[in-house]
């Protein structure tokens, strides 16, 4: 256990009695796979870890434990989801004990998978700016920045925006802000039918497992979602391309002005479909039109659930 992990365990221990359970990070089936750890009693803390592989957004679980008293360990991006849930009144701040972890970035397993065979990882450690991965038959060293998840390369909120306890010093954002929408701009360089074919091809792999919806912290109506419902009957259960495109549009439109760019939807997709940039495009539009970022201000209202009589940036079309 690193001393940061010690500190977290300590904090969880004293908070345990005023919560039903604590959501932190625990050991997975191999060193590079971490799993969300639900701490009910002290002995669960043995599995606790806090390292560069703790990529999950624990806020994903808050929607399913609405009426319970919950403790949660959050990084910067995760904390924005907590703020957004509180801001929309979907969870009660008093039921929450939050431990904030200033974060310098987490690893994207997909990026690592492309660089080496990770089926037999025995050890993984971080030394200053490089990451060493040992497997049964090879050892490789990588530049940390090459493995970081995309969202970390333009992270503007390394320090959690909401917490009861902060483990370690606050970190000032150092990453270039304009990188955030670079992937969107690149996509928009292609012309229209190239993009049309691109999404036909990528989304054809979708198996409608709804992992992207269930992991999304903002999708509070997952069990009654219109992606699968017969009433209202927006789409059928078929797996043809129009239904799969509609699923992404439903998610993007329902997230407009609410998505906190935690990137989980793309991470969890078993068929590796690049759907996060869809939500990024939506965030870019909301930022352009309403100069608003989700999950920052506890008092704000998501832009699409309010209005201005005179809209500064929306011009009426002339006929």
């Amino acid at each position, binding site marked *: 256990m690193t001393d940061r992990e010690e500190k977290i365990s300590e904090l969880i221990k004293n908070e345990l009695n005023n919560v039903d359970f604590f959501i932190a990070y625990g050991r997975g*089936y191999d060193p590079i796979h971490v799993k969300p750890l*639900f701490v009910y009693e002290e002995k669960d803390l043995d599995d606790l870890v806090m390292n560069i592989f703790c990529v999950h957004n624990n806020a994903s679980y808050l929607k399913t434990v609405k009426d319970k008293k919950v403790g949660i360990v959050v990084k910067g991006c995760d904390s924005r989801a907590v703020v957004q849930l509180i801001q929309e009144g979907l969870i009660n701040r008093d039921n929450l004990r939050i431990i904030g972890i200033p974060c310098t970035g987490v690893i994207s397993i997909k990026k690592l998978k492309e660089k080496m065979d990770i089926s037999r990882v025995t050890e993984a450690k971080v030394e200053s700016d490089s990451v060493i991965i040992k497997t049964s038959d090879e050892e490789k060293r990588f530049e940390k920045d090459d493995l970081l998840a995309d969202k970390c390369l333009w992270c503007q909120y390394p320090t959690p925006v909401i917490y009861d306890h902060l483990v370690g010093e606050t970190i000032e954002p150092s990453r270039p802000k304009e990188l955030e929408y670079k992937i969107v701009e690149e996509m928009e360089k292609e012309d229209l039918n190239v993009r049309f074919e691109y999404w036909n091809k990528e989304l054809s*792999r979708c198996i409608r497992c709804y992992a992207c919806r269930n992991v999304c912290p903002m999708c509070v109506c997952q069990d009654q979602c219109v992606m699968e419902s017969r009433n209202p009957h927006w789409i059928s259960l*078929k797996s043809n391309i129009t239904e799969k495109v509609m699923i992404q549009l439903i998610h993007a439109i329902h997230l407009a002005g609410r998505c906190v760019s935690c990137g989980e939807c793309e991470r969890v997709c*078993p068929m*590796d479909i690049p759907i996060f940039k869809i939500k990024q495009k939506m965030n870019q539009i909301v930022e352009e039109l309403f100069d608003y970022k989700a999950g920052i201000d506890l008092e704000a209202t998501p832009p699409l659930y309010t209005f201005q009589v005179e809209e500064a940036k929306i011009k009426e079309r002339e006929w």
Partner: protein
Amino acid sequence: MVMSMSWFIPENEFDIFVKNLSKKRRLFVPVKENSIVRFVEFKDGIKPYFEKQATSSAKNTIFPQTETLFRFEYKKDPKDLKKFSVEISETIEAPETVVLGTRPCDARGFLVFDKVFLNPKHPDIYYQNRREKSLFITMTCTDPEPTCFCKAVGSSPADSLGSDILITKVKDGFFVETITEKGEKLLNELNLKDGDAYSKEAEKVKDEANEKLESPFDTKGLSADILKLFNTNFWEKELAHCLSCGVCTYLCPTCYCFNITDETSDSEGERIRTWDACMFFHFTLEGSGHNPRPTKAERFRNRVGHKFSYFPDRYDGMIACCGCGRCIKSCPASVDIRKVIIDLKEAANESA
């Protein structure tokens, strides 16, 4: 039992072998797209990928995610608009299919399917038609992954059960052996080189493969343990981090649950069968709004219980899990079914 004949395909002729397979029949092969591997229909220019286990199983080859059971149309009697007839048209005929590149665990999966869909009293004619017309060429699993645990459920990296032909990679080519008549009939058409010379080397490779894996848990008494923990809060704590999504069920070679819905437009429509999963809220939602399995804990209990308790008890001990580890590798929340079973046995013993 048919006398197992054997053939040999040199390394460099394997591509021709693949092309010949696809000539008269519809061929499915695993293909790498982005960082995942899945079974798609072979077309010229597609490069099959056999190195790693496919991300999703091969069940979509004969149990597609969406299947039209039949089409129907209301026909009105022009003279009396109140009278109408319904015309039904169904297409059951399926083309001859060959699936190349399954692993022994994939092939075993279909044994579970057969138990359910081919039961003599009510066979599922759609599945039955495709099953008879399809043929599985399985590849011995020479490098099982840490997430594999086929041994624990009675299979092994070189298990030929459920396959029609078994191919084993040897030094300078592929040792091919027939398991079933269908397999033999197909191979005879292809006049391949005789494989006897390589049978010893192949046996060695297969034995080595079997040794590479050990069994993480023993399934003896597992079924009873599960029933013992049925009403405890073991499941809620063990599966707290599960997202209750459909990844594990849809990638799993043995999950065969499905949903049937009608899609109508104007006065015609079709009845479609689509994959479904016990992990979804809708799966057990009743008309009244009551749901016997409202939370993910109960649903996961059903998933583990079905595979390791209810199915085996009903089908003389056959475990509805082939240990392929796909659910472990692709789970967004890193739920490890092996750990669940180990913890489950431990919890059952404690409460004994």
